[in-house]
C-alpha cells in the first residue's frame, strides 16, 4: 500500500463557512461511500479561508497564500491505496466546488539506508 495526499482546491478565498447545503450533503455522501469501501482516510481537514494565510519567503512575512492564484488550497486528507489508479478512483468521488478540483500527490517514503 502507498499513501497519497489528496489536496482540495477551491476558488479563493475558499471560506469553509460559505459551503452550501448541497455541498455539505455531497460531503456526507462521500464519507458514507468511503466507509462502505473500507478506504483509510487520515487527517481530513478543511482550512480557514486563504485571506487568513500568512506566508514567509526568504524570511519576509507577507499577508496571503504562498502562491497568488485564482484557486487556493481549501483542505486535504491522506489516503491509503494500492496504486495511483485506486487513489484516483477515490479522488474522483471527492466533492469539489465549481471551479475547484483535486490534486493527488504521493507521499514521499525515504529510501532505507
Amino acid at each position, binding site marked *: 500500500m502507498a499513501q497519497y495526499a489528496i489536496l482540495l482546491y477551491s476558488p479563493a478565498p475558499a471560506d469553509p463557512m460559505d459551503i452550501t447545503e448541497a455541498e455539505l450533503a455531497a460531503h456526507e455522501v462521500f464519507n458514507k461511500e468511503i466507509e462502505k469501501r473500507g478506504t483509510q482516510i487520515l487527517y481530513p481537514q478543511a482550512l480557514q479561508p486563504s485571506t487568513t494565510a500568512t506566508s514567509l519567503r526568504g524570511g519576509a512575512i507577507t499577508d496571503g497564500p504562498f502562491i497568488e492564484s485564482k484557486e487556493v488550497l481549501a483542505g486535504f486528507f491522506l489516503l491509503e491505496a494500492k*496504486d*495511483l489508479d485506486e487513489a484516483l478512483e477515490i479522488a474522483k468521488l471527492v466533492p469539489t466546488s465549481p471551479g475547484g478540483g483535486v490534486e493527488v500527490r504521493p507521499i514521499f517514503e525515504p529510501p532505507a539506508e
Partner: protein
Amino acid sequence: MTPIERAVADTHRREWAFVLAATARVARDMDLAEECVQEAYATALQVWERDGIPNNPGAWLTTVAKRTALDALRRQNVFRSKLPLLVEPDEADMNYSAESTGDVIPDDRLRLIFTCCHPALSGEAQIALTLRLVCGVSTADIAQAFLVSEATMAARVTRAKKKISAARIAYRVPAAEELPDRLDAVLTVIHLLFTTGYTAPSGDQLVRADLVQRALDLTRMLRDLMPDEREVWGLLALLLVTHARRETRTDAEGRLLLLEEQDRTAWDQEAIEEGHRLVLDALRGGNPGRFALQAAIAALHATAKKYEDTDWPQIITLYDALLRVWPSPVVALNRAIALTMVFGPEAGLTEIEELESDGRLEGYRYLPATKADLLRRLDRKEEAANAYKAAIALAENEAERAFLTQRLAEVS
C-alpha cells in the same frame, strides 16, 4: 554489419518490447529493467558470435535480462523493499525465484504499453516513453524526431519514469470498464507517432520514416495482443490506407499534391486492400469508434478509381457518424469539405464560417487554407487572397508554403 550484428539489431527491433516487458515484471523497476535488457543485448553480440544465434532470440534475451535483474535485486536485497517499485496487480502471481521464471515467459507487452500511456502522464511523456520503452528507440533518436535537444528528451523520459514509480502507476492492463478510454489513449499516442513521422514539418528523413514504421509495428502488435478490439483494427486500417499514398503526396520537386492530383496507380494496392478488409470487419460489429470511422473515410478515398468516382454522399454519412462519437472541430472542417463536393462551395463555406466564429480552430492552418480554396472557386478573389495570406502565415513546412503562395498568385 556482420550477420550477428544484423541479427542482434533485428531482434532489437522485433523483440525489445517483449524482453523489456517480461524483465520489468521481475525487476519491478523500469530503470533497472531497461539496464538489464540493454546489457542482455550487449551480451548477445558476444555470445551469439561464439555459439550461434539461438532458436528463439527473444526468449534467450529475456532469460539473460531476467537473470541480471534478479542478481541486481539480490545484491540490493537489504533495501529492496524500499526501492520505488512498479506496482503489480496481483502480488500473488509475482515470483522472484529464477527457477520458476526461467522457462515460461509471460507476454507483458500490453502492460508495458498501457503503463507508458497512462493518463497521469503528459501526452509528451506518453509518446517519449512509448518510443523509449516499448520500441527501444534511443533517446537521441526520439529527440531528433521531435526536434528537441537530447538533454531535454532525456529529462522528459527520466521524469516520467520517476513519476511511474513515485506515484505508483500500476504495471497493468486496465480493467474492462476503463479499457475503452485507456485503449483510446494508447491508440492516440500511436496515431500521433504516425502523423509526426508522416507530416513532420522538418527533421531527418530517415527518422521520420522510422516513426511511421514504428507506429505500424506497434499497431500490428496491439492487434495480435488484443485481437477483439475493433478500434485497433480501425487504427491499423487508417494507418495502412494513409501510408499507401506515401509515394504520391509530393511531386518530383517536393511540391505538395492534392488528393485529386495524385497518381492513383502509384498507390500501394496491397496496403489499401488490407486496410479495406479491416475497415469492413471493424464496421461489421456496429457502433464503430472514431478510428474505425476515420479509416472507413480514408478507405473510401483510397478505393475510388478516379477522384471523380469518390462516393461523397457516403463520406458525408461517415463524417456525421464520426462527429457523433468525436465532436472535434477538425472533423467538422473535414465534413464541410465533403459537403462542398456534393452541394457546392457555398454549402461548405457556410459551415466553415460557423466554425471560424466559434474560435476553437484559431491558429489551425487548414481552416484558412480550406476557406481560401472555396472563396477562390466562388471567384471571390479578394477574400480568397486574404485567406491565403492567413494560411501562409500559419504554414509549417516549405511544401505547404510553396503551394499556398502559388495559389495566392493565381487570385491576386
